């Protein structure tokens, strides 16, 4: 989701950014929104560092505790500053504009907030280093059986809750927003398709997460006597479950000018493309840079084809058709030889 947000911000012209900054300098609420976003980004970045410190492969980092606190602080400062470069850069831009317009209260607020985020991050990651392997707070509930279809959703909820919440909330809010916007002007069904495209892209990282989860924790899957098609069927159920809240939101908020059948078609289209992305990614090592480039290209091509009036039915057929074609040529094990 952050990637999509960054892409969206990247589409804005410099003058638009400056207008936004100028508005934020004069509006505590807007400035608060900026800081909330920065806080979220910082939380995500530092949570990543903490998770890496606890990862079995990186336990040697614990030896870093032997360094003096001041040296550790400096090194953490370096790491955190690198991770927060997007925030520091944007905040720097805002500070320059604040000086130019003599917005001193905004200047001090931004400077304090950024320094606070950096210092808090340094303290937070160093605390994890000094207190490794914390005993997690757990409710002593009876262990309910977990079927295979819930293995990944449970992992996502337990191990990467920020990702789950951000993905589902952003996708849901976007679809609701599009549905509410639809009756207010002369929009046609392309608007709903655009919303769908973005909602699917919000979910794009899920396929990588699911693939990595199964390749790392469920090595035995490749030894199970399921054909490629049976495996595909199981993944369709998995993504159907993940994509189910969007159906509920669509059915609750769809515009009067649109039929239920069209809403179901949109949902099926989204599901087909999610499964297609999964089929393309599963079992492959995906280079993050190439992945971002592919997402960006998909967004642009999708945007152009939707603008060219390619209907939802064609999108639906393309998504499911490509999934079937790609699956037809896959062989067990579902790994690409390295």
């Amino acid at each position, binding site marked *: 989701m952050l990637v999509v947000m960054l892409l969206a911000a990247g589409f804005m012209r410099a003058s638009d950014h400056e207008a936004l900054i100028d508005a934020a300098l004069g509006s505590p609420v807007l400035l608060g929104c900026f800081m909330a976003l920065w806080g979220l980004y910082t939380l995500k970045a530092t949570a990543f560092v903490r998770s890496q410190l606890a990862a079995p492969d990186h336990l040697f980092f614990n030896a870093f505790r032997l360094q003096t606190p001041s040296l550790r602080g400096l090194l953490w400062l370096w790491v955190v500053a690198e991770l927060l470069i997007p925030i520091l850069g944007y905040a720097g831009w805002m500070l320059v504009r604040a000086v130019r317009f003599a917005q001193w209260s905004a200047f001090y607020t931004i400077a304090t907030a950024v320094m606070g985020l950096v210092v808090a991050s340094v303290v937070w990651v160093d605390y994890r280093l000094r207190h490794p392997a914390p005993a997690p707070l757990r409710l002593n509930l009876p*262990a309910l059986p977990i079927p295979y279809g819930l293995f990944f959703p*449970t992992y996502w909820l337990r191990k990467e809750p920020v990702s789950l919440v951000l993905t589902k909330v952003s996708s849901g809010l976007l679809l609701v927003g599009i549905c509410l916007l639809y009756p207010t002007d002369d929009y046609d069904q392309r608007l709903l398709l655009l919303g769908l495209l973005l909602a699917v892209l919000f979910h794009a990282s899920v396929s990588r997460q699911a693939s990595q989860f199964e390749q790392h924790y*469920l090595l*035995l899957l*490749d*030894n199970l*006597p399921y054909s490629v098609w049976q495996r595909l069927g199981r993944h369709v159920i998995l993504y159907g479950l993940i994509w189910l809240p969007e159906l509920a939101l669509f059915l609750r908020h769809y515009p009067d000018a649109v039929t239920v059948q069209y809403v179901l078609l949109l949902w099926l289209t989204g599901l087909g493309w999610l499964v297609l992305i999964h089929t393309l990614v599963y079992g492959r090592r995906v280079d993050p840079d190439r992945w971002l480039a592919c997402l960006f290209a998909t967004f642009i091509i999708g945007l152009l084809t939707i603008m060219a009036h390619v209907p939802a039915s064609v999108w639906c057929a393309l998504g499911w058709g490509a999934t079937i074609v790609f699956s037809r040529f896959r*062989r067990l094990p579902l790994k690409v030889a390295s």
Partner: protein
Amino acid sequence: MLTVTNLTKAYEGKTVLTVPKLTIPPGIHYFRGSNGSGKTTFLRIIAGLLPFTGTVLLDNTYDSQRQPVDYRLRVNYAEAEPVYPDFLTARDLTSFVARAKRAPPGQVDQLADLLGVTAFWTQPIRTYSSGMLKKLSLLLAWLGQPQLVLLDEPLTTLDVETAARLFDFVREQIRQSVSVWLTSHQDVALTGLPITATWQVSNGTIHQATDAFTS
């Protein structure tokens, strides 16, 4: 029993294992070799976990690539260092694998008792010791009606009592025409298992060891 033809496995363009032709009869087969020699890679290929070039044929009938479902019904695998999602329980994983491998009724309970998994059946895996994890992986490897069971380092972290029960069970399975391949850095002679043949994995290939302990 199992025939390997023109097998080649490469990682990132570098060939790590080449087996031009290998025919392994039924029985208990011990694969030995130094660390990184390719034992685990070979077992994983046979288990259908890794892509490779070549042919692996079970009973001259089931090709691991052409009949992947039939083949995987008959070949099971226990990892050397099993890793499972820590929020699952032995019950969750076992019921999933048992259904996939078409385990006969009562088999799960029998194996869970044999390997002592019943004691932590509904405990989350995050609470397991390495020995408990190993017991769970061994249980999963015997589910269904396999013809070939691949045990990668089965002795590591396994307590003496469970190991003894496991070896008795292996002997019983051998009498029922199940073959077992195992790797170990421990002395397999101590297990008392009737080893059919010992295979040396080294220099990127596999050949039968002539100085081996067999019975």
